[in-house]
């Protein structure tokens, strides 16, 4: 057979390697920064661009799409050419793939920091970037499939199957999840609402893990591990079996992210079942990788690349066992919303993705630069520092998760939540957040060593952009020649190309047509009391989304007693029909906000409290780790966009009356004036056109529609006499509860912030200063003014202790003097 001479394209591989290194370091630095923010809120700098809510999506997107993404491309572009003995299909497509992807990353970093976000996790990018992603992704697939078509090796090696699955999986997921209706260039609303949006999002979120962080990495493992150890994969058959089973099973496991949330039970059961089944194919990959090393473990001792592969496989095995376990409903009940999730994803991200990509780079860079690794010692140092870093990162977070699940659920013998103050639990976890910074710092240090080592290696070696090679041609059919073959044969040959093009066109076209018609109409209000957001609330919601509040606050109460006692009534599907997008969140660093607007519930805070809290959370709560949001008090509401927002919502099926867009701005101003007046009555002067007003309006909408109206003031009734305890032990107990609960508003010394939060030390008592009246105020609260009824949180004895502490220790006026 004719021997053909051709050139491998090394340039594209080098470009992707550098992109992996640079973006990877940026992503890890941002990760370290947000870890610092969680432990020391001052690191937020009081600057909108770098608050946790804005930087966390930067970190997650950068790790997934910039670090792992570029690492995948580097690995794919190198191994495809070598496996198929051909240059990549088209240099132009390769260049578009590279520069397009870097442009996406750059745009992502800028827009996310500026607060342009859809708030759908790992799909936060706004619609113009979504379109760009689709284009670049199709370019990648086209280039890859083209390369397969012009290959010089008939057999398509296992790794390439994983790459292909990656392309197809992500294409479908990205298109389906990204349907949003634009309001402006950088603002859109998800076409799905509430529970439906949540289902689509986690179908995407789960499968992004599958098809972006698992299948391509397994593909890399199947190429680079055998190469690095110079042995064939343990079982080629196993690789084929576990490939097909894994890709068929993964798509159905998504609902496990929404267990016990507002989702039909059968869907939850489906998600759990498929998650458990996934253990088999996942461990197939791990076992295949480990057994490839059998009889070669001595080489692992000497090679940093192999060590990274071993840790990568171990982390993969751990994460793919842990994942299915976390999808069991009873396990999920305690792990969900805690730091367990964070530890889980970092084991997978740092260990599995990081391990395989680091191992790949340590092997690949010396090979393409035709030299030895600059320093095997330094690489080993990277390995140990990095592995230690992962452990020091993950273990404290597992610890924190256990603390959270125990303390969130703890009850006193009297049947009250043992830790009704969310802050108290968080305070226990802060040391763990400090510890993980150490882990992250070690990981970053390792990353720097990697870059130094590889840069030195590249310097020492030489890698021509064009690498000459020879291979025999694979007999291949040319353009359609009717004399030699039938049209059918030709079509069959072109079938793959056609079907892919046809699929993309059909998927996009079909979805545009079908989705608005079928799925929006199904958002029929099922709970009559649930009304659409007023223009001001909608604006507040958009600010809530912009600031990334969902990264720390969930908005869905699960049907557990320990959640309903803490937050209020559990959430129902029908409550969310106007939520484009949904805001359930996945992590409770702060408390759930689903019932923040329920006046008679335990989560209600009045406007003045919210104002003070946004301006300076630490003033209201010394140990709070929430960033300050002073700009909410300075920025003005952009009323100009309100009408178009209303129109888009109407298109999405939200029942605003026809022509409401013309009236919306007036309504917004009217409602804002009411809140501003309320704040003024509390001594806070803020113009009604500030963003703060909108956010407060939104928070007061949450859960309000299905709540019972606050009970009428029953102060007129004769109060039962109470006898306050006087023992020092009782006063101490009262003080302890005061500091935990009351100090949040009334201050540690009882001075309060009058008039919103009354001074408890003077002689003026709004609801009476007698022991009976004070105990009554604590018991029943004053919901309209923002004080909740503590009878559901504290037993009577503790209420009396509190009243005793307040009256006998804090209050300086004499008994007769109090009014």
């Amino acid at each position: 057979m004719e021997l053909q001479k051709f050139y491998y394209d090394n340039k594209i591989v080098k470009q992707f390697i550098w992109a992996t290194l640079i973006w990877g370091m940026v992503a890890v630095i941002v990760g370290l920064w947000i870890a610092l923010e969680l432990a020391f809120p001052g690191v937020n700098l009081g600057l909108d661009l770098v608050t946790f809510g804005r930087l966390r999506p930067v970190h997650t997107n950068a790790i997934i799409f910039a670090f792992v993404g570029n690492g995948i491309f580097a690995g794919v572009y190198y191994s495809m050419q070598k496996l198929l003995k051909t240059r990549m299909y088209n240099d132009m497509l390769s260049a578009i793939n590279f520069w397009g992807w870097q442009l996406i990353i750059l745009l992502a970093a800028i827009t996310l920091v500026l607060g342009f976000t859809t708030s759908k996790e790992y799909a936060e990018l706004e619609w113009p970037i979504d379109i760009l992603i689709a284009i670049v992704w199709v370019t990648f697939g086209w280039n890859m499939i083209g390369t397969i078509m012009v290959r010089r090796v008939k057999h398509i090696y296992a790794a390439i199957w994983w790459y292909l699955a990656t392309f197809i999986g992500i294409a479908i997921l990205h298109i389906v999840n990204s349907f949003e209706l634009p309001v402006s260039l950088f603002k859109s609303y998800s076409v799905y609402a509430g529970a439906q949006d949540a289902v689509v999002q986690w179908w995407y979120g789960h499968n992004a893990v599958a098809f972006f962080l698992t299948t391509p990495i397994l593909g890399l493992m199947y190429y680079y591990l055998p190469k690095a150890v110079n042995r064939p994969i343990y079982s080629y058959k196993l690789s084929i079996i576990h490939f097909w089973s894994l890709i068929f099973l993964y798509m159905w496991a998504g609902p496990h992210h929404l267990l016990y949330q507002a989702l039909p039970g059968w869907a939850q059961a489906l998600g759990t079942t498929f998650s458990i089944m996934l253990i088999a194919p996942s461990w197939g990959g791990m076992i295949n990788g480990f057994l490839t090393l059998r009889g070669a473990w001595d080489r692992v001792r000497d090679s940093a690349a192999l060590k990274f592969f071993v840790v990568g496989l171990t982390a993969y095995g751990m994460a793919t066992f842990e994942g299915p376990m976390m999808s069991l409903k009873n396990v999920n009940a305690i792990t969900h919303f805690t730091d367990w999730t964070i530890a889980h994803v970092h084991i997978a991200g740092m260990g599995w993705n990081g391990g395989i990509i680091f191992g790949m780079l340590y092997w690949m860079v010396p090979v393409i630069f035709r030299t030895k690794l600059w320093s095997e010692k330094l690489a080993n140092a990277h390995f140990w520092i990095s592995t230690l870093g992962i452990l020091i990162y993950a273990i404290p977070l597992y610890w924190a998760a256990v603390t959270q699940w125990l303390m969130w659920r703890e009850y006193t013998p009297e049947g009250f939540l043992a830790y009704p103050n969310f802050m108290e639990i968080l305070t226990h976890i802060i040391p763990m957040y400090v510890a993980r910074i150490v882990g992250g710092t070690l990981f970053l240090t390792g990353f720097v060593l990697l870059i130094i080592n590889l840069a030195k290696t590249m310097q020492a070696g030489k890698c021509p952009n064009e690498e000459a090679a020879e291979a025999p041609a694979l007999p291949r059919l040319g353009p359609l020649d009717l004399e030699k073959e039938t049209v059918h044969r030709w079509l069959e040959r072109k079938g793959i190309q056609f079907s892919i093009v046809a699929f993309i066109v059909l998927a996009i076209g079909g979805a545009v047509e079908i989705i608005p018609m079928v799925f929006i109409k199904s958002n029929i209000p099922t709970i009559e009391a649930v009304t659409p957001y007023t223009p001001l609330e909608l604006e507040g919601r958009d600010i809530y989304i912009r600031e990334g509040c969902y990264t720390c606050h969930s908005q869905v109460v699960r049907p557990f007693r320990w959640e309903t006692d803490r937050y209020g009534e559990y959430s129902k599907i029908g409550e969310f029909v106007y939520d484009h997008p949904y805001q359930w969140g996945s992590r409770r660093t702060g408390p759930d906000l689903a019932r923040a607007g329920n006046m008679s519930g335990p989560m209600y805070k009045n406007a003045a409290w919210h104002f003070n809290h946004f301006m300076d959370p630490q003033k209201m709560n010394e140990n709070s780790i929430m960033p300050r949001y002073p700009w909410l008090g300075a920025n003005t509401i952009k009323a100009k966009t309100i009408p178009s927002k209303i129109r888009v919502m109407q298109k999405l099926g939200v029942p605003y009356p026809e022509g409401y867009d013309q009236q919306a701005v007036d309504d917004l101003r009217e409602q804002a004036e009411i809140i501003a007046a309320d704040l003024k009555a509390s001594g806070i002067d803020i113009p009604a056109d500030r963003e703060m007003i909108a956010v407060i309006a939104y928070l007061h909408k949450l859960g309000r529609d299905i709540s019972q109206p606050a009970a009428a003031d029953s102060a007129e009734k004769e109060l039962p006499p109470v006898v306050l305890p006087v023992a020092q032990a009782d006063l101490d107990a009262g003080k302890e509860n005061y500091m935990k609960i009351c100090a949040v508003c009334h201050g540690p010394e009882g001075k309060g912030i009058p008039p919103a939060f009354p001074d408890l030390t003077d002689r003026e008592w709004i609801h009476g200063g007698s022991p009976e009246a004070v105990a009554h105020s604590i018991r029943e609260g004053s919901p309209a003014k923002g004080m909740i009824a503590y009878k559901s949180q504290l037993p009577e004895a503790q209420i009396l202790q509190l009243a005793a502490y307040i009256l006998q220790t804090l209050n300086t006026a004499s008994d007769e003097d109090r009014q």
Partner: protein
Amino acid sequence: MNIFYLLIGASLLAALIFLAAFIWAVRTGQFDDNETPPYRMLFDDEPVEEENGNKETERLRDEETERHK
């Protein structure tokens, strides 16, 4: 929760594409030989020494581009 029709549809579509790929792979004999491919991938061809200048490189690249059409 009509959304499940869409998601099940999309998931089935993915499954069908994978199934088609699987059938294609089986019918074209991709899985006939499970012994040699894992060995073959280990052998990279020796780098071909470049005796030609840039012109030759360009010519060969053009040829390859032509072949890919």
